[in-house]
């Protein structure tokens, strides 16, 4: 069912494109870094309810910005099927004698790798800004969270890409899906400050658990336990892969 060569080829293609598109890499890093720098510096001296006073805001912010970068780059990664459709290359993939699952998994593998590289770069820069991790073992666990966040939103992007005819609907997805997911997730502030009804909404946002898991594993502060966050992310990412594959399989290649 799963064709390893096809999976590898599609992964390799993403890597080659990623390495060649230097401006894209710079662009993808710029936004999270600006967020980190300006929000971090701007709110540096503020006491925010829900964040204890001995935790400075930049520390709180780093996992949130990592989550944001993963959310954006992964959803775009899933949506990039639409660019392949636009440039005709999707047909070449669709007539190849490989299962659709391999195609989806190859794309996800490529997307996760690029998203992970970006996250590690952001993390490296935040180390330069004084960010510290609490333990190496938990740092490795945070990488697992990054992978799960990335898989979840690659799946989401793929679902949208399969339902959309062309890239026209891109800004709608951007404004009505990606941004709400970002703001509901507590990337920038503790969710305890939300009114009750908004907190409910944040409970159905996968990124909430992703970022909470990143905070738990990177700075040791979180609303839920690590295990619960991990469990939620495993469920979300599995569901998204299955739905993404299902919709991709149903969509016609032309």
């Amino acid at each position, binding site marked *: 069912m799963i064709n390893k*060569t*096809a999976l*590898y*080829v599609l992964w*390799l*293609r993403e890597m*080659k*494109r990623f390495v*060649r*598109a230097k401006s894209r890499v710079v662009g993808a890093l710029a936004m999270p870094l600006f967020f980190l720098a300006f929000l971090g510096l701007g709110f540096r001296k503020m006491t925010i309810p829900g964040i204890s006073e001995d935790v400075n805001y930049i520390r709180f912010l780093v996992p949130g910005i990592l989550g944001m970068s993963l959310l954006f780059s992964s959803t775009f990664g899933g949506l990039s099927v639409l660019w392949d459709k636009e*440039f*005709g*290359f*999707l*047909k*070449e*993939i*669709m*007539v*190849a*004698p*490989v*299962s659709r699952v391999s195609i989806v998994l190859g794309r996800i593998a490529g997307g996760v790798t690029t998203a992970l590289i970006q996250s590690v770069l952001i993390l490296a820069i935040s180390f330069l800004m004084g960010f510290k991790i609490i333990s190496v073992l938990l740092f490795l666990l945070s990488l697992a969270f990054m992978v799960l966040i990335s898989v979840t939103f690659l799946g989401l992007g793929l679902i949208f890409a399969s*339902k*959309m*005819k062309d890239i026209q609907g891109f800004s709608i997805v951007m404004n009505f899906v990606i941004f709400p997911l970002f703001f509901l997730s507590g990337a920038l502030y503790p969710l305890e400050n939300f009114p009750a009804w908004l907190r409910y909404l944040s409970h159905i946002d996968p990124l909430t658990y992703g970022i909470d898991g990143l905070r738990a594993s990177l700075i040791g502060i979180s609303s839920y336990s690590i295990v619960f966050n991990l469990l939620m992310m495993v469920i979300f990412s599995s569901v998204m892969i299955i739905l993404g594959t299902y919709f991709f399989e149903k969509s*016609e*290649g*032309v």
Partner: protein
Amino acid sequence: MYAIKVDNLTKKFNDVVAVDHISFIVDAGELFGLLGPNGAGKTTVINMLSTLLKPTSGYGAVVGFDISKSKDDVRCSIGVVFQEPALDIKLTGRENLEFHAMMYGLGKEERRKRIKEVLELVELTEKESVLVEKYSGGMKRRLEIARGLIHKPKVLFLDEPTLGLDTQTRRHIWNYIKKLNKEGEVTIILTSHYMEEADFLCDRVAIMDNGKFVASDSPEKLKDILGGDVVSMEIEGDPESLMGQLKSLEWIETSTKHGEVLSLTMEKGERRIPQLINAAQKNGVNVTCVHLRKPSLEDVFLHFTGRTIREQEASQSERNRAMIRARMGRRR
């Protein structure tokens, strides 16, 4: 051995019937042409046979594999060159080929060998490490043909292989196609709306119009239907009585009126022209211009549909828009 067998194949997009109960057989090794104006349904046929579109009804098989049931077997047996480029322009020519060969399960040694062969065939060896975005239209087309051949398909689909190319490149590609078919024993199905292309290349053509086959045979036999020569006369005046008289002449095989132009087919047309002009004058019609030629597939199309392919394309555009609307609706 059949390469392709199609029986009552139909594709509807909502209410618009793009392909309407067509049936045909292509023998192994044949070079078969699907001919017709844009929007006649040629690409839809190719898309169904290459498993990209699901037929609404009917049966289709490629080298014995059912296109609805054994998709992977069909995909392994075919190569497709789509109407629009389907290359990754951010990869080099070689990488595009490499990618394709791996997807089709070729081993490392075989890949190297086949890629070398096909690059030489389309004369792109020197450009193999250039990014495809730097390629010209003709080079892209050649790369795609090369790619379609790497895995030695039994059947190669070429959808408008020379669309938008200059005359020289077109000739070049025609020669490849002929060579491939003759030497490589590949069955080739090509679509075209260039009648002279089909005439030059194909062993057999099917003329498609509004989703249906209107005629199917070798180009020579199709042209023979029209008889020896085509004489077209531009006329002024009321042609009613002249048409009546022409119909009674037994040496005129077919006559079609089309605007100000009468198209007549007959043997030894050059000897009949004086008689025709005479007849016209007797019926009070002024002949302003006479043209004699051997019939082309264009005339065959005119004969079967009553319109030239150009006009057909104009009237098709409204139908196409309806089809696009129907397809958009289907997706939303």
